[in-house]
């Protein structure tokens, strides 16, 4: 069995051996157990269900909240020759969706966003198939205490029941013990086999620098990069900042290739920039959190946080993109006064306030009074309510929870005041909780004890022995850092004729090009 698994891994994925945790999880999955797997980002969680998909009869259903990640994986699998993979999400064209619906039985691996599972037709189709494994990726989304709570995830146990209890595999990169318990409770699977692996990586060194202004941060970055020209990601919390910083760093670092990436860019440009970075054509990428999901670049040596993300879990994930190859890498956090204002504003914009809740309830009430129970299309609804999609998702979940709504229909009239009061209280609590998460990370940055120990303490009892340097609190200095570097080269002269020949595989590209 063991041998066969290794052979299958090699045959289907080209990997020589399993990484930590993979074999243990896969063996339990193949035995039909319900499994909870906590493995750090980049450790290869996908293999834990993609390999079983090749080995089990029937189809593997994967619920994933990250549409872009899903598409990346589908793309990668398609690139390596798998035709029997499909990802259902809002980006799939209607035509393709219909075709796929009709041929659903032909797929071995079916990715679906949680929203897709709201559609009764889709679930019915699924229940006609033999689902041999039900995978919940990014399973921390199921918990109120997870950093990316997705109300849609709370209904998964109904789906599992409808599908007649296939074995369940829940996967996450970051989950505190509290969240782990919640995952198993929300899925109604109290007896999951648990495979929990520590998240700290021995090759990453931590440092926090306090500076006065944003321009000092830029100066600091360019000094670090001048001394250590390594593949680098720099995280920002706003699109504008990625562009501004990329321009300033390009000017300050003429020998390095610097670019920015954010969700507002043209799609074709996004692909080019992402792939240039993967392909070592770029040294430094200034990005928002939109970059990096599904990014698997081995030699990122330095992850800088120009702004901190709104919670520790995201920070650990982002830092975890450094040093996938196991070589010495650094996480550098740059702090300046008032850095907490932006995430605070963001959080307040994510959850509905009292006013907004009252407005939505008034709207629903007036519809019921007019005898109209169906809500308009989401776009139109959001437009007329002047409310963001995130806020609406929150509200809809709670309306449904209170039995006020079912599938875009208002069920009947209610004690509106009480419900308004209840939902307002929940929203206020969530806001408070999220603000506390922001503080947690700031608090971490100000600690005087070892950064590594303090960062991972909420998730695990011990941390591994660092293989290079530990952190600035334990005496690390940038001047002592000697990373392996492989900087890209900037080409000085450019000749399009030469370049075109090369791209289009026209003979020897070095040969003299005849003029004409």
């Amino acid at each position, binding site marked *: 069995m063991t041998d066969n698994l290794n052979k299958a891994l090699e045959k289907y994925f080209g990997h020589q051996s399993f990484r930590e945790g993979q074999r243990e999880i896969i063996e339990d999955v193949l035995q039909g157990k319900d499994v909870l797997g906590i493995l750090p980002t980049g450790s290869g969680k996908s293999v834990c269900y993609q390999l079983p998909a090749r080995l089990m009869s029937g189809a593997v259903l994967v619920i994933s909240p990250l549409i872009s990640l899903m*598409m990346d994986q589908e*793309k*990668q699998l398609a*690139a*390596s*020759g798998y035709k029997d993979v499909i990802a259902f999400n809002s980006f799939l*064209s209607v035509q*393709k969706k219909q075709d796929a619906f009709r041929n659903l039985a032909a797929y071995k691996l079916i990715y679906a966003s949680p929203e897709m599972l709201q559609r009764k037709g889709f679930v019915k189709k699924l229940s006609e198939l033999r689902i041999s494994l039900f995978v919940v990726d990014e399973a921390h989304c199921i918990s109120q205490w997870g950093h990316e709570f997705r109300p849609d995830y709370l209904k998964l146990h109904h789906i599992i029941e409808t599908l007649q209890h296939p074995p369940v595999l829940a996967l996450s990169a970051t989950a505190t013990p509290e969240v782990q318990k919640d995952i198993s409770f929300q899925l109604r699977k109290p007896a999951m086999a648990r495979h929990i692996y520590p998240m700290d990586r021995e090759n990453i060194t931590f440092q926090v620098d306090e500076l006065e202004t944003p321009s000092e941060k830029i100066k600091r970055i360019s000094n670090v990069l001048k001394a250590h020209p390594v593949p680098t990601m720099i995280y920002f919390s706003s699109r504008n900042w990625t562009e501004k910083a990329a*321009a300033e760093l*390009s000017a300050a670092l003429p020998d390095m290739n610097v*670019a*920015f990436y954010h969700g507002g*860019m*043209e*799609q*074709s*440009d996004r*692909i*080019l*920039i992402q*792939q*240039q970075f*993967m*392909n070592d*054509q770029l040294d430094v990428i200034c990005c928002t959190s939109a970059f990096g999901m599904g990014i698997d670049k081995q030699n990122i040596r330095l992850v800088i946080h120009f702004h901190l993300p709104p919670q520790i879990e995201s920070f650990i994930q982002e830092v975890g993109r450094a040093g996938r190859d196991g070589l010495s890498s650094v996480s550098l956090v740059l702090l300046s006064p008032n850095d907490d204002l932006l995430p605070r504003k963001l959080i307040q914009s994510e959850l509905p306030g009292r006013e907004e809740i009252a407005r939505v309830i008034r709207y629903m009430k007036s519809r019921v009074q007019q005898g109209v129970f169906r809500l308009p299309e989401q776009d139109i609804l959001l437009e007329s309510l002047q409310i963001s999609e995130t806020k609406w998702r929150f509200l809809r979940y709670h309306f449904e929870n209170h039995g006020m709504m079912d599938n875009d229909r208002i069920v009947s009239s209610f004690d509106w005041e009480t419900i308004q009061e209840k939902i307002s209280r929940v929203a206020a609590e969530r806001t408070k909780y999220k603000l506390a998460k922001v503080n947690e990370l700031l608090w971490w940055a100000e600690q005087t004890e070892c950064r590594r120990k303090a960062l991972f303490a909420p998730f695990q009892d011990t941390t591994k022995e660092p293989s290079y340097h530990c952190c600035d609190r334990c005496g690390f200095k940038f001047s002592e850092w000697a990373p392996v570097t492989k900087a890209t080269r900037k080409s000085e002269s*450019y000749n*399009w*004729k030469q*370049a*075109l*020949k*090369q*791209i*289009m*595989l*026209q003979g020897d590209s070095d040969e003299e090009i005849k003029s*004409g």
Partner: protein
Amino acid sequence: MITIIILDSLSKLKQERTSAAVYHLLVGKRSSQTLQDAHIYHLTGYFGIAKGMDKHAFDQKVENLVSKHYLAYRGDKAFVTEKGMSFLKNNENHGFLLHYNGLVYDRAADLFYERLSLFIQTAANIKRGNHRFIPVSDNQEVLLWMKKYYTAARHRLQELLDQLYGEMLPFLKRLPEQHADIFVKRLSGYSHFGMSKVQLAAFYDMDKYDFTVLYQLILHRMLNYIIYDSTPTPTLATFSSGLVKEVFLTDSARKTDDLLKQGRNVEEICKIRRLKESTVHDHLIEIAYAQPDFPLNNYVSPDAVREIGEQIERLKSRKLKQIKQALDDRYSYLQIRLVMAVYRAGRRKGVEQ
């Protein structure tokens, strides 16, 4: 580049429209007002060449032109000053403006490029033995097309690359060096990803929208080259096929078109519709722009088409009077305008032979 496009547009609008009309044109607003403006004022070329530009950025450019005294206001309408006209005429990019073919190539230009660049990337990688690469396009429509194309092409990838190279090279040589650089720098190949538009704009120190319209210019010229230049381009043409569609007609022109299709001639149509001859001529022009199968030879002989076409190309001008004189007044304005229309509408090669 975009500033002279704005100037050219406003000068052609002759203060009959506000600058907002130019904005709608550039971003490709599909309203009948914008489409009619495009036809009436001969601005179809600029339709949709600056998609995604926000109104604020546009207004700033207009204000900038005003502060340079290239534009001035009469009431709420901007007009091009003498200084502005001379700036426009003497601008090094002025000669390029006639290559734009926005209304016809709207959407097609980008889809054509995505097909072409995806194929080049795919062929180069497969030829080099790399079957695992991330495609430069994730547009479903393009990927679907590529799947079909690839199935038929996979045994002659090198041959197709050679042919594409052979067809692209003469075109790129015609372009200014910088434009050819830009085109090639954006291409991806084996283990090499091209530069993004944003990177290219920064590299050449260009304003974002200047680059946007310049980039469209290159693509439009390439499509013009494929569709009506005399150089044979059978391989490139497979990448544009099916993309270049019919253009909208105004209602009045459509009525004229119906009558033409019933076999009526211009004189009869004038009588039936109680229109002036010049109006029906305008309709003919509009139809010629819009329909690839417009029977040009009913109005201009094949030899004349060639002669007029050469003269337009040589003069790099759209000034009718100048062209007419250069042809010794042997052809009417209608004939010249029709050739121009068909020429710029991207008539398929060979139709006029």
